[in-house]
């Protein structure tokens, strides 16, 4: 049985500006126990897809199965925990009380104190939820997702509101939870997060899946850099034979080299052409990489 199975999934929203096809027929399978990143720029359809996995949105077409059943049934069994992209906490309960109340809804919750330790919120456990900072609120929302002890954990851009330290702690906890045999799916627009914390990445752009594979492969595809240099009178074919260079283009006096390994390319370029000037290395952003992939 698969953790998640999406078949020909589509969703269109009606807006005043006309219909927006948020998800245009995607097929994705996530095995139980896998940690998968849903990677893509804003507007790629990541949240819409996750909302359908959670049963919060009804697909216009296609099927969603979570552990072999409809999302609503998986949710009713208590098999799903999620940290949604937006959302605050209800007021007038302490963090610990809120976790106790939430845990009571699930058949096999984690121990509330264990969860508090796991997420590192002991210092605010007795505080009313409306008195928390933004970062603390995020951590409590993560604790809510974990306390249900779900088989599937869904995280929709969980680290957006966190500082660097908060992020590190968050991912450490996520990995420790995933190592208990849990299935984890998280949406992100950071390649680094997908690379560091997922087994596999599914790349989305414009409501479609443009790539799906081990994060190392995905990184090679989209983690490209460009090397720009002023270098007249050198044939492009020659430049394309340099180590680490996949493609070369001329722009007036300058050349732009797409690199699979920019470090190797720089060394080779400087060693071979001592008249190369104005070297610039640019990270091809995810958005650009996506544009290239979807072209």
């Amino acid at each position, binding site marked *: 049985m698969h953790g998640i199975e999406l078949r020909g999934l589509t969703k269109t929203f009606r807006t005043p500006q006309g219909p927006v096809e948020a998800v245009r027929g995607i097929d994705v399978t996530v095995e139980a126990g896998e940690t998968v990143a849903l990677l893509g720029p804003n507007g790629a359809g990541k949240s819409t897809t996750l909302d359908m996995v959670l049963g919060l949105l009804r697909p216009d077409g296609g099927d969603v199965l979570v552990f072999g059943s409809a999302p609503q049934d998986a949710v009713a069994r208590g098999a799903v925990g999620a940290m*949604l992209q937006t959302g605050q906490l*209800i007021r007038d*309960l302490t963090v610990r009380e809120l976790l106790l109340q939430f845990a009571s809804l699930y058949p096999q919750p984690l121990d509330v104190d264990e969860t508090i330790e796991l997420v590192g919120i002991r210092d605010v456990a007795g505080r009313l939820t409306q008195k928390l900072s933004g970062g603390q609120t995020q951590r409590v929302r993560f604790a809510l997702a974990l306390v249900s002890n779900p088989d599937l954990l869904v995280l929709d851009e969980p680290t957006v509101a966190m500082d660097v330290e908060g992020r590190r702690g968050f991912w450490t906890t996520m990995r420790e939870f995933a190592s208990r045999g849990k299935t984890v799916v998280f949406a992100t627009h950071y390649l680094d997060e997908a690379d560091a914390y997922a087994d596999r990445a599914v790349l989305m752009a414009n409501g479609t899946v443009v790539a799906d594979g081990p994060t190392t492969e995905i990184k090679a595809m989209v983690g490209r850099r460009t090397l720009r240099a002023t270098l007249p009178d050198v044939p492009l074919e020659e430049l394309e034979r340099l180590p680490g260079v996949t493609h070369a283009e001329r722009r007036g006096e300058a050349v732009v080299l797409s690199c699979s390994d920019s470090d190797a390319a720089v060394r080779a370029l400087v060693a071979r052409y001592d008249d190369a000037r104005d070297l610039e290395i640019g990270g091809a952003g995810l958005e650009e990489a996506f544009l290239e992939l979807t072209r």
Partner: protein
Amino acid sequence: MSGVNAATYVRYEIKRTFRTRRFVLLAFGFPVGLYFLIAAPNRDTHSLAGSGLSAPLYFMIGLTAFGAMNAMLSAGARIAGERQVGWNRQLRITPLSPRTYFRTKVLTGYVMAVGTMALMYVSGAILGVRLPAGEWLHMTWLILVGLVPFAALGILFGHLLSVDAVGPAMGGTTALLSFLGGVWFPIQHGALHVIAELLPSFWLVQASRVALGGSGWTANGWLVMGAWSVLLAAGAMAAYRRDTGRA
């Protein structure tokens, strides 16, 4: 979901409600304060406006109806705030069934309403209201039944309106329904009476007629209450479905 777990959920929901000071003050303090203001100067009036009911008794039930109505509406209307922070989406990915969710909201409203009733009964006794135990119970029963449409109306508001709109909507509704229901003075004749008899708040206030002997509500009263309950419960259900996108 097992009953034990639902009990934990309900317990914290009630705890949370009682921690909201403004809410508690409005539900408890306001009716009691108004009662002493209105009824105390008239404590020796034995038949208010020829109704056959003493002023302390009439206003005790009038303000109980007012306070309980307020408590029930606010309990449901709090949903608007929970929706605003996205809490309803969070709840929808838990095993909490819509049925338990609604029961919890209604039960929380009733706990607040019963608190108001108890405080008002004590206030009434202080101003000299004396009734046989059977009549206290009968009155209480009628008020509890009469709050059903208000529980539904609160949930309807909570799912239909935004946080900004829900306050004025509730305030307006309570003001209008308490005026036309006879909270502030008995409505016994004329066009106003014809309208009043069609409103659930009127029959809430009429629970005080238990003290005149007889059954308190006429058949017409039960009919009006039943119709409003069914109508508003259907409305609440529709608002919930529209809100959550469930068919």
